[in-house]
């Protein structure tokens, strides 16, 4: 009997995308919570730098979660992982 699901590229990419969404959630949530007052802060990062940061940190989440099935439940775990990686990067002042 097969005890492990195993890693596949579709699983890797699905969890990578989900982790990137988690990463971006951490980036854009301040915009939504400050909604009535437009955020004009000039230190908001450039779009390409956020994309690069999200893509590279989420690679770790995707590598670890690549053997999980592509279901809403497991994708939500990847989203949380991406958000946590962003928080870690911010605390360590990586970006």
């Amino acid at each position, binding site marked *: 009997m097969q005890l492990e699901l195993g890693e596949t590229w*579709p699983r890797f*990419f*699905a969890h990578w*995308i*989900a982790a*990137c*969404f*988690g990463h*971006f*959630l951490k*980036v*854009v*949530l301040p*915009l*939504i919570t400050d*909604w009535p007052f*437009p*955020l*004009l802060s000039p230190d*908001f990062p*450039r*779009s*390409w730098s*956020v*994309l690069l940061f999200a893509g590279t940190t989420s690679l770790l989440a995707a590598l670890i979660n690549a053997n999980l*099935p*592509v*279901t*809403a*439940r497991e*994708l*939500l775990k990847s*989203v949380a992982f991406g958000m946590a990686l962003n928080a870690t990067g911010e605390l360590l002042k990586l970006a």
Partner: protein
Amino acid sequence: MEFDSLISRPEPTRLRAFGRFINSVCFVLLLIVMGTVVYGLFLRAQWERSYFIAVAIAVFGVIALLLGLAQQEIAARDKATWRAMAEWQLKATYAKLAAQWAEGEKAGIPTPTVDSSAYYEQLMEVLIQDMQRTSEGAAAR
């Protein structure tokens, strides 16, 4: 002979219903997360035009993830259908075998035990007959 114990299928219980409920809640949460990200990037794009590229990439990601989820769902359903079809075939075979053995007992022929080769011979015979009749019926139609 108890046929249902040969083909075990987990009964729908309260725990399984709870699992399905959690699955749907997770799907709604995932949709909320994706919607929030796209909306937040769109808000930012109104102050900095270059963010429209990020919005486009996020929308592409949403489509890719939803397609992946749908594909998984369809594959799981196909698998369940094939499993059900095989189970019906096996149940029909065992029912036919039981009738055959009951007639044999009346005529004085002992019913073969599970560890005898006669048991498997008769099982395969009934299965093959059933499959042949099914394919002949399909060809006649």
